[in-house]
């Protein structure tokens, strides 16, 4: 906390990261690399947003994909309706997702631990069912078909894979800088107090309900943005976006990368995607392999990879000192 850079430093680091990722991706110019960048941005952002709840606030949500899906559907529907520019539709989709998160969160955050987890899961399944059965609006099982128009804005053509990769990367890094500022602000400290000891925090005068709800809405909104990127990527929106397995994958990524290190979920998302790609190439039973890896990680390291690395590094430094 003492040695941490200010948010201006974060912006600088993010800008460098942007260059470091974008330049090689473009020099290589391989569609598969650009494709990976987009997916990394989407799932990295989803996992980072979920970790604001899990790692920072101590709320394990199993329904986070509801907001991923709502962002995707809201954006897709707005663009298909015509008359919306992409930036306006992105903002509108995020606002709609925030409102949805506000409504669901207001009912869920009063509960804690397992009851909270179950209720978020239940709401996600409810929304999933609504999307499946409201065929006239959402296309039901088939998803939002017919493609999503991507009119260029400010010289950015998201129909172009390279532009989409840069744009996704930009959204990811901007969100990460924003999330980091949130985590390190007095508000973030309040969330961590709630995670550590809600009873004592309340005794000091903190409203558990309001702060948990705020965290829920913020996390949901960023998940909505990642859903927008997803619908741009696949040029549609599908019910699997808000199925519980998507929430499960986000949790998996966080567990892979680490809960306590800020960038852990991002590392987790990258590892998850690489593993997933490799394993699906080799075997049909990729679920089995991924499950085994998670099991080994949980039983072996008892924490995520970045957690493990950072802890080991700290210990080594302390031993030297």
């Amino acid at each position, binding site marked *: *906390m003492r040695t941490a850079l200010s948010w201006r430093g974060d912006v600088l680091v993010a800008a460098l990261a942007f260059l470091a990722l974008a330049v090689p991706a473009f020099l290589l110019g391989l569609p598969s690399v650009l494709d990976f960048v987009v997916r990394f941005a989407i799932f990295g952002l989803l996992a980072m947003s979920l970790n604001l709840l899990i790692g920072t606030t101590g709320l394990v949500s199993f329904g986070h994909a509801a907001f991923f899906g709502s962002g995707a559907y809201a954006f897709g529907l707005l663009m298909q309706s015509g008359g919306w520019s992409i930036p306006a539709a992105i903002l509108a989709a995020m606002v709609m997702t925030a409102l949805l998160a506000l409504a669901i969160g207001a009912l869920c955050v009063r509960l804690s631990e397992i009851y909270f987890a179950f209720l978020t899961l239940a709401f996600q399944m409810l929304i999933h069912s609504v999307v499946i059965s409201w065929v006239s609006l959402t296309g039901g099982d088939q998803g939002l078909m017919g493609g999503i128009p991507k009119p260029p804005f400010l010289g950015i053509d998201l129909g172009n894979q390279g532009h989409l990769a840069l744009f996704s990367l930009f959204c990811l890094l901007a969100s990460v800088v924003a999330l980091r500022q949130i985590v390190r*602000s*007095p508000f973030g*400290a309040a969330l961590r*107090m709630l995670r550590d000891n809600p009873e004592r925090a309340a005794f000091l*005068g*903190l409203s558990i309900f309001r702060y948990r709800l705020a965290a829920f809405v913020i996390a949901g909104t960023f998940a909505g943005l990642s859903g927008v990127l997803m619908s741009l990527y696949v040029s549609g929106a599908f019910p699997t976006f808000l199925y519980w397995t998507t929430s499960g994958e986000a949790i998996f990524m966080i567990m892979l990368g680490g809960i306590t290190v800020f960038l852990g979920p991002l590392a987790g998302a990258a590892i998850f995607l690489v593993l997933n790609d490799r394993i699906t190439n080799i075997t049909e039973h990729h679920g089995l392999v991924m499950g085994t890896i998670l099991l080994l990680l949980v039983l072996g390291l008892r924490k995520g990879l970045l957690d493990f690395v950072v802890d080991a590094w700290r210990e080594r430094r302390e031993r030297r000192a």
Partner: protein
Amino acid sequence: MRGGRLELQGLRRTFGGVVATDDVSLNFAAGTLSAIIGPNGAGKTTLFHLISGKIKPTAGRVLLDGADITNLDRQDIVRRGVGRAFQVANLFPSFTVAESLVAAMLTHEGRTASLFRAFPPPDVAARADEVMELCGLSSLANITAKHLSHGDQKLLDIALALALDPKVLLLDEPTAGMGPEERWRMIERVHRLWEARRMTLIFIEHDMDIVFRIAETVRVLRYGAVLAQGTPEEVRRNPAVIEAYLGSEHALEGDVA
């Protein structure tokens, strides 16, 4: 903030058929240092729960500087100036000592809604330094709470209450679970805190040597009711207290000073 006057008027609390607090009326003058003693189950901690609003009394009133705070919720009671430390240290395990104090102050002042500032803000950090200095925690400022020793955790718990600048500070067994030497160090620290801040300090304690050494007044509870109160000497002479609680070890005979 100087000490506040705390008055308990006819406080009563029952749990089902059990009377945990039985018509307790006590006055704590502003800036005094009092001990509450009594056998296990005498209702000492319950009394703290009633004062701090953790549980509501069945009957009776709690007044702070003459104002009724009985039915306020816990946060409001804290805001009015009644701070409390817990029997088992109740901390934020992943926060460092300095961060814990800053977080407590920000929360108390309602300044946690800010998303765009840095944590900790410099002005609050400076005040946290003062509290750490006062409590002798300065050298541990950057240690995470979960890595502190038991005694230092209790000290941080008290510091957290103190960070809110209370008029009345309730300490529930500040020396619980400590060895004899550590106890004395702790209680001397508490005494120094009280001398520095002059808040109204009320502590629950089992060690009679400590109680009779530092308390100005002693209140004895038994079966939820007030059995006796007075200066340490008066209490030690009180036949009812000797019989019920002290035994002969700590009793003062009539002719001993």
